[in-house]
C-alpha cells in the first residue's frame, strides 16, 4: 500500500480533487493542492509502518533463534562477513614507527575463522598447528602471498584428557582410509561423507549405538565424532607381529674421559632410583653394554649371584658372546641389575683407556636388539677413535667466527646413517647423550638418532667438579627421559583434503613412503614439521582438513592409534590469507627449511633465503593488499613480529656467522630446531624477558593457594634493562636472572638472601627458599614456567660472571652486535631490499 503510494508520488500521476478539474500534465507530478497536514499524516503513517515492519523482522529473525548475544555473534562469524579478529589481524602496522609490538603475555595461536561448534571440536593448537589458518584456494594464491604452507605437529604430547575408544570396528573411509572425525558430514543416519576424499561410506551397525549415552541411532554423538583427538585400541589387523615388550639397552662410554667427568655415577644413581618408574609391564627387559677400546657385556641371569662381565676385544668382527641373559627380564633380575649399577662406577674408576670404540658398540647393540626392537640409549663422551665408524676431528677452531661460511655441517661418513636405517628396520630407536667437552663430530654421530626416531641430548663440558649445574641438569633430564611415556614400533601417516599434498618432512624419523613415516620409538617431547603444496584447486570446498594417525605399541604391549584432526577454512582472497597467518608457526617452519638448506647447500644461502622470505612476503602484502602509500615498512598486524623473529633466528647459534660458535654446539642447535615442539623452539628463538622488581599481583593467577604473578613481556633490548631493576629471561632450557648494579637492596635480600649486590656469589644457580612474599612470588613464577615445559631448565643469576653475562646479552636480539644488525637496521635493510 505505501509502496504504491510512493510510486504514485514519484512517477505516476493521479487526480485528487473534484472531478472535472483538468488532468495534470506529465511534467507535474505532485498535485498542487496537497495540504501540509495531509502530507504530515501520510509521512507519519509511512514511518510507523516501517517501524513496525522492522521490529517484526528483527524479532523473528534475530531474537527468536538466538536468545543470547554470543550465539548471534557466533552465527554472524560463521557467515562470510569479516569478524573483528580478522580486521584486527589485517590492521596495517608501520614497523619503523611502532616500537612496542610485543603483546603483554606470550603470544597465543591465532584462532581459525570457523563457526563456534567447529572451533570447539577442533584440534588443540598445541598439538597441530598450520602456518596459515586460512588455507588459500589455489597454488597461485599461495605463491602470491609468499608465505610457506606447512603443519607443525606434536602428536604424542602428554595430554591431560584423552578419549580412548575400545570399539571392535574402527570406522574408516573405504578409499582414503581416513578415520572418522568430527568434521565428516552425515548424509542421513546411515551414511557419512569423508571430509578428505568426499567418498560416501556406510555407517556400520555397531557404530549406531553410542555406549557413552546408551542411545541408538545417533552416530554423530559418539566420542570419535565429538573429539578431534582420540585414541583407538587397535585390533590384530594393525599388527605385523605380536606387540613387543619394552626393551631398554644402555650403551655406556667408560673411557678415562667419561669416568673423570663423573657422569657414570649420576647415571647409575638416577637409574637405580627410577628403575621401577620406567614405562613397561612384567615383560620389560633391560641390558647394559659398556665400551672403551673393547666392548663389555654383562650376564645378568637371575641364577647368578653377581653380574658376570664378558669382554669382547675383537672389535673388527663383533659378535655376541652368549645368546641369552644379556637382555634380561627386569622383574626377575632386578637384584642383579641393582648390584651392577652400584658397582659400575668403581669397576672403571682406575681406567687408563682413552679410546672409544663407539661404532663396534653400536653394532653389538644392533645385533643384541634386532630380534625384538626397543630403545638404545648411548652415552658418549668423546670422539669415536677406534673401529668402524671412527671419526677425525674436522673442526678448525680458527674458523669458529668466520663470516664466510661454515664447513662440516653434514656427516663425514654414512656409517651411522646406515646403522640408523638398519635399526629403524628392526624397530630399534637410538637416543644419544653427548657429554663431551671437546669436538666430537656431532654432525656424523647425530645421524644414528635422526633416522631411527631417537632424541639427541648434548651437555657440553659436563664435569662433576667444574660444572655442577650441567650435571644437575643432566640428572633431571635423565629422570624425565627414563620415566616419560614411550611408544614402540610406531608409524605415522598424515592425510590431507584432496588437493593438498605433503612434499617435505622435517624431524627425526625415516620416510618410508610418500606419506608414511617410520618411527622406531615415539616420545612425548618430539615435534615434527611438514611442508605442503596445493596440487588442485580447493574451490569447491570451504573447509580443509588434516589428519595425523600414529599407530604405536604402548609400553604395556597394547597396540594403539592416536588420531588428531585439524580443520581450517579455505579462502580465496589474498587479504584473508594474510589475516590468518600464524607468525610463530611460519618462523618455525622457515627455521626447519633454513637448516635443511644450510646442510645441503651453504649457511649463507640459508641466511639469505630467510631474509628474502621476509622481504618477499612484505612486498607482496604492500603491492596487493595494503592501500597505504606512505613511506615506512608496513606489515599486517598478524605479521608484525615476523621481521623480529627472523632477526632472532639469524642470531641463533644454529645460523649465526661472525660470532664464535663451536661446531658441535651449532650442530646441536640445528638438531633441536628439527625435533623440538613449537613452544620450545619459540622460546629458544625469542626468549621471554620479564621485569621482576616491579611485579604486581595484577592479573596474577591463583593456583593451589599460590599466587603466580604474570608480568608483562619486554622487548629484548638493553634499552629495557635498567640498573635499578632485576630481570628474568626465559630461554627455554635456561633461565637468566639479571640483577642491575643499583638494584634495590631489599629485593636482593628478600629474594636472593644476600645483603647487597656486591655480596651475590659469582655463580649462583638456585634461588633460596625464603619466607618473604617477593621470594614466594618469584619462586611461584619460576615453578609455573618450569611446569610448562617437560625438561628442566637451569637457572643462572647473572651479576658479573663473564660467560653467563655474554650468553645473556647475546639473547638481546634487537641490539646491534659486532657482526649483526640491530632490529631497526634490519628493518631498514628490508625496506631497502623491498624497494629494489
Amino acid at each position: 500500500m505505501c509502496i504504491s503510494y510512493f510510486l504514485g508520488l514519484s512517477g505516476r500521476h493521479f487526480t485528487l480533487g473534484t472531478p472535472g478539474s483538468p488532468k495534470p500534465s506529465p511534467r507535474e507530478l505532485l498535485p498542487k493542492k496537497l495540504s501540509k497536514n495531509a502530507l504530515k499524516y501520510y509521512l507519519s503513517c509511512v514511518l510507523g509502518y516501517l517501524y513496525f515492519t522492522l521490529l517484526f523482522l528483527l524479532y523473528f529473525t534475530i531474537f527468536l533463534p538466538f536468545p543470547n548475544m554470543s550465539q548471534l555473534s557466533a552465527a554472524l562469524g560463521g557467515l562470510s562477513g569479516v569478524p573483528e579478529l580478522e580486521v584486527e589481524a589485517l590492521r596495517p602496522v608501520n614497523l619503523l614507527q611502532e616500537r612496542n609490538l610485543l603483546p603483554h603475555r606470550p603470544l597465543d595461536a591465532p584462532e581459525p575463522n570457523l563457526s563456534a561448534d567447529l572451533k570447539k571440536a577442533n584440534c588443540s593448537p598445541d598439538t597441530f598447528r598450520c602456518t596459515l589458518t586460512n588455507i588459500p584456494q589455489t597454488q597461485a594464491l599461495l605463491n602470491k602471498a609468499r608465505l610457506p604452507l606447512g603443519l607443525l605437529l606434536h602428536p604424542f604430547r602428554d595430554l591431560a584428557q584423552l578419549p580412548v575408544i575400545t570399539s571392535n570396528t574402527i570406522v574408516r573411509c573405504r578409499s582414503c582410509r581416513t578415520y572418522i572425525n568430527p568434521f565428516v558430514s552425515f548424509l542421513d543416519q546411515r551414511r557419512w561423507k569423508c571430509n578428505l576424499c568426499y567418498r560416501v561410506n556406510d555407517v556400520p551397525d555397531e557404530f549406531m549405538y553410542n555406549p557413552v549415552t546408551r542411545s541408538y541411532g545417533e552416530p554423530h554423538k559418539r566420542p570419535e565424532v565429538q573429539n578431534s583427538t582420540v585414541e583407538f585400541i587397535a585390533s590384530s589387523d594393525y599388527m605385523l607381529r605380536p606387540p613387543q615388550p619394552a626393551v631398554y639397552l644402555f650403551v655406556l662410554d667408560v673411557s678415562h674421559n667419561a669416568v673423570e667427568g663423573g657422569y657414570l655415577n649420576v647415571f647409575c644413581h638416577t637409574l637405580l632410583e627410577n628403575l621401577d618408574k620406567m614405562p613397561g609391564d612384567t615383560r620389560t627387559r633391560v641390558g647394559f653394554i659398556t665400551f672403551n677400546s673393547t666392548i663389555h657385556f654383562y650376564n645378568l641371569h637371575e641364577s647368578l649371584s653377581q653380574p658376570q662381565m664378558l669382554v669382547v676385544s675383537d672389535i673388527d668382527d663383533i659378535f655376541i658372546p652368549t645368546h641369552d641373559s644379556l637382555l634380561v627380564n627386569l622383574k626377575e633380575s632386578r637384584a642383579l641389575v641393582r648390584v651392577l649399577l652400584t658397582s659400575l662406577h668403581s669397576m672403571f674408576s682406575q681406567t687408563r683407556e682413552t679410546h672409544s670404540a663407539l661404532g663396534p658398540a653400536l653394532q653389538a647393540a644392533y645385533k643384541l636388539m634386532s630380534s625384538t626392537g626397543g630403545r638404545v640409549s648411548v652415552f658418549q663422551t668423546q670422539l669415536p677413535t677406534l673401529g668402524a665408524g671412527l671419526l677425525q676431528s674436522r673442526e678448525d677452531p680458527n674458523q669458529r667466527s668466520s663470516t664466510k661460511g661454515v664447513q662440516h655441517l653434514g656427516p663425514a661418513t654414512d656409517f651411522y646413517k646406515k646403522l640408523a636405517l638398519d635399526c629403524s628396520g628392526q624397530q630399534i630407536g637410538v637416543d644419544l647423550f653427548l657429554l663431551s667437552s671437546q669436538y666430537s663430530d656431532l654432525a656424523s654421530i647425530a645421524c644414528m638418532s635422526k633416522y631411527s626416531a631417537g632424541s639427541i641430548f648434548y651437555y657440553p663440558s659436563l664435569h662433576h667438579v667444574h660444572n655442577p649445574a650441567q650435571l644437575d641438569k643432566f640428572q633431571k633430564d635423565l629422570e624425565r627421559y627414563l620415566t616419560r611415556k614411550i611408544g614402540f614400533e610406531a608409524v605415522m601417516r598424515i592425510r590431507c583434503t584432496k588437493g593438498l599434498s605433503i612434499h617435505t618432512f622435517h624431524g627425526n624419523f625415516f620416510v618410508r613412503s610418500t606419506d608414511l613415516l617410520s618411527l622406531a620409538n615415539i616420545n612425548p617431547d618430539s615435534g615434527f614439521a611438514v611442508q605442503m603444496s596445493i596440487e588442485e584447486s580447493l574451490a569447491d570446498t570451504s573447509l580443509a582438513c588434516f589428519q595425523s594417525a600414529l599407530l604405536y605399541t604402548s609400553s604395556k604391549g597394547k597396540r594403539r592409534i592416536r588420531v588428531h584432526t585439524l580443520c581450517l577454512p579455505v579462502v580465496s582472497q589474498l587479504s584473508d590469507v594474510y589475516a590468518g597467518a600464524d607468525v610463530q608457526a611460519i618462523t618455525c617452519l622457515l627455521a626447519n627449511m633454513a637448516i635443511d638448506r644450510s646442510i645441503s647447500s651453504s649457511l649463507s644461502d640459508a641466511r639469505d633465503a630467510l631474509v628474502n622470505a621476509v622481504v618477499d612476503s612484505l612486498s607482496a602484502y604492500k603491492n596487493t593488499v595494503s592501500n597505504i602509500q606512505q613511506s615506512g615498512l608496513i606489515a599486517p598486524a598478524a605479521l608484525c613480529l615476523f621481521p623480529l623473529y627472523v632477526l632472532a633466528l639469524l642470531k641463533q647459534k644454529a645460523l649465526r656467522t661472525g660470532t664464535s660458535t663451536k661446531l658441535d654446539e651449532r650442530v646441536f642447535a640445528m638438531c633441536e630446531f628439527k625435533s623440538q615442539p613449537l613452544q620450545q623452539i619459540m622460546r629458544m628463538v625469542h626468549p621471554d624477558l620479564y621485569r621482576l622488581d616491579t611485579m604486581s599481583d595484577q592479573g596474577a593467577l591463583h593456583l593451589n593457594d599460590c599466587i603466580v604473578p604474570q608480568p608483562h613481556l619486554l622487548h629484548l633490548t638493553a634499552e629495557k634493562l635498567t640498573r635499578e631493576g632485576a630481570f628474568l629471561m626465559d630461554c627455554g632450557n635456561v633461565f637468566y636472572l639479571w640483577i642491575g648494579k643499583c638494584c634495590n637492596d631489599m629485593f636482593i635480600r628478600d629474594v636472593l638472601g644476600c645483603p647487597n649486590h656486591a655480596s651475590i656469589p659469582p655463580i649462583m644457580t638456585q634461588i633460596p627458599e625464603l619466607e618473604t612474599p617477593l621470594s614466594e612470588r618469584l619462586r611461584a613464577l619460576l615453578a609455573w614456567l618450569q611446569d610448562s615445559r617437560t625438561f628442566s631448565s637451569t637457572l643462572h643469576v647473572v651479576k658479573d660472571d663473564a660467560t653467563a653475562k655474554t650468553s645473556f646479552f647475546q639473547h638481546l636480539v634487537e641490539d646491534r652486535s659486532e657482526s649483526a644488525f640491530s632490529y631497526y637496521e634490519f628493518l631498514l635493510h628490508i625496506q631497502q631490499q623491498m624497494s629494489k
Partner: protein
Amino acid sequence: MAFTFAAFCYMLALLLTAALIFFAIWHIIAFDELKTDYKNPIDQCNTLNPLVLPEYLIHVFFCVMFLCAAEWLTLGLNMPLLAYHVWRYTSRPVMSGPGLYDPTTIMNADVLAYCQKEGWCKLAFYLLSFFYYLYGYVIISPVSPLRVCSNN
C-alpha cells in the same frame, strides 16, 4: 669388406646405447615404484646404486673410443652428458659405497621429481643417440651396397 675403426666404434656404441636405454628405463620404473609406494626406499636404493657407475663408465668408454677414432662431431655431442655425469657424481651425498641415491633423502618430493625428470631426459637422449649411431654406422661403413649396384 674392411671395417674401419670408426665403423667399428659406431657399431659398438650402438650396442652399448641399447644397454644404456635399458638402464634409463630401469631408473624410470624404479622411481615410479617409489612414488606409488610399491617398494621400500632402502631396497630400491640398494638396487639402483650399483647401476650408476656402470652406466657412467660405459658412456665414458665409448667417448674414449670416439676420441681414438677421431669422430669429433659425435664426441662433441656426447661431451655435455659426460660433464653432467661428472658433476652429478661429484655432488652426490656422503656414502661409502658407489651410487647417487640416499634412502633418507630420496623420498623428498623435489628429489624424486628431479630424478624422474632426469630419467626421462636421459631416455630421450639415449634413444636419439641410438638412431644417430645407426645412421652414422651406415654412412661411415665402407661397404655400401648402393655403390656396388651403381657400378653396373
